[in-house]
């Protein structure tokens, strides 16, 4: 079953196009990884899916509803089943870790304070931050913030979780931890995941399918195996740092 679908989506900012005619289908329970150079519009795709931005043209379907014309109020109904991990975590810095994780529960559920405390404890344990409820965000490392952000995103058991560069700026060990968390979250919650990254190792680790965004278009979509074996020179260059064979592109020459 298709849970998220972008149909012929165009997006421009102030008349400057970021991409045209994006088509993407993401199945329920699948982890889709979007790769592409920085500035190619990966974050923009996530923002369109969760309705922070409206497309210039085209349709965006979530669970069989076309949301691109939805106002904030109708969008909020959809968003209650979605979570997002931001690139720089975007934790509420005036609130403790526990309050951050509890935020969605307090806003939208009728749980008692004890129930909320127990859910928060469980989610923090899932991300390896047991007992950190009272820490403030500014006392945490980048990797810890990312994990709190993940705990906050999954607190309400969303059916769709979006991750914007979840491993950017982290050391390899922490990146690996986050990758495993994305995989284990999906296993436990059965949620659909959309992950934006430019770490190829991460992408291969967590993806069911990978889509590559390049110069305003999705130039390739496929399983991990299909992407590894892609004959598209740009895909090859992106995932192996340079082309396996053939002529050097300008970008390849620049790197020499």
């Amino acid at each position: 079953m298709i849970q998220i679908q972008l149909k012929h989506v165009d997006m421009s900012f102030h008349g400057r196009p970021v991409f045209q005619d994006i088509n993407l289908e993401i199945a329920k329970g699948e982890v889709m990884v979007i790769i592409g150079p920085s500035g190619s519009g990966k974050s923009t795709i996530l923002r369109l899916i969760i309705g922070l931005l409206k497309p210039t043209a085209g349709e965006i379907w979530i669970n069989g509803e076309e949301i691109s014309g939805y106002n904030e109020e109708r969008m909020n109904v959809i968003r209650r089943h979605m979570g997002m991990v931001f690139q720089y975590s975007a934790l509420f810095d005036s609130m403790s870790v526990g309050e951050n994780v509890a935020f969605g529960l307090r806003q939208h559920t009728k749980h008692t304070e004890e129930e909320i405390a127990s859910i928060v404890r469980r989610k923090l344990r899932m991300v390896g931050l047991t007992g950190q409820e009272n820490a403030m965000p500014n006392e945490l490392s980048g990797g810890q913030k990312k994990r709190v952000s993940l705990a906050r995103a999954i607190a309400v058991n969303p059916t769709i979780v979006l991750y914007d560069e979840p491993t950017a700026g982290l050391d390899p060990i922490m990146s690996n931890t986050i990758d495993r968390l994305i995989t284990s979250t999906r296993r436990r919650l059965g949620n659909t995941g959309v992950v934006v990254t430019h770490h190829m190792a991460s992408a291969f680790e967590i993806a069911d399918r990978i889509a590559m965004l390049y110069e305003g278009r999705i130039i390739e979509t496929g399983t991990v195996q299909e992407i590894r074996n892609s004959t598209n020179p740009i895909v090859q260059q992106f995932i192996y740092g340079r082309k396996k064979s053939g002529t050097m592109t300008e970008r390849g020459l620049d790197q020499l």
Partner: protein
Amino acid sequence: MLVALLESFGRRALQLFETAGQIVILFVQTLQQMRHLNIRHAIVQMSHLGVDSLPIVLLTVLFTGMVLTVQTAHEFIKYGAQSSVGGVVAIAMGRELSPVLSGVVVAGRVGAAITAEIGSMKVTEQIDALRVMATDPVAYLVAPRLVACVFMVPVLVVFADAIGVVGGYLVATLYAGIGSFTYINSIKVFAVVNDITGGLVKSMFFGGIIAIVGCYKGLTTASGAAGVGRATTESVVLSIILIFISNYFLSLVLYR
């Protein structure tokens, strides 16, 4: 040369109208979101506002009441009108000086703090995080601040009126040689309740201006390190200008 000057003037004027329109829109949106007001948040904001501003408001109006008395007493005694001094001070403080000066002080203290806080939430994607968690930033952030400013600034002005008149009393009796009875009696003879209530009505408008302009400038903060600082300055300047302009028209309506 002249054309270029006119063009840039016209552009600035258009920008100003656009900003004014957007501020009005934010105000209307905030009123629509009042049904989602979190009373507890509003009370927290009120206590912040009071604690932050009361000392500096009192200091400002104390010296204003004092200097006003020095100047009026000096002139009035020349014409044998010392029995008018108390009334003039009370009316001037109640109608104009307490509300306007309190408004200016609160714009500098609280308006700036509102813009800085919301602006830094904006540039660190915390506003987007609120929206992603199906929480309307206008309901969550703007509504409690509007309520706090509209109801707390008049409270400050009540204290300001009292302290301004006391400052006048001290100077009248200790420096200008006006008797204690003369000063107090003069207030009783000249001042009426409307001198106070009119000032309080004005200060509610000023509180509203400070809150909406502060939130507007915060929510529209441009990203980048300089963004928050610039937004904060603009917020204070715009609030103070609007306070002075609206004060003139409010005086026309309230005291004709």
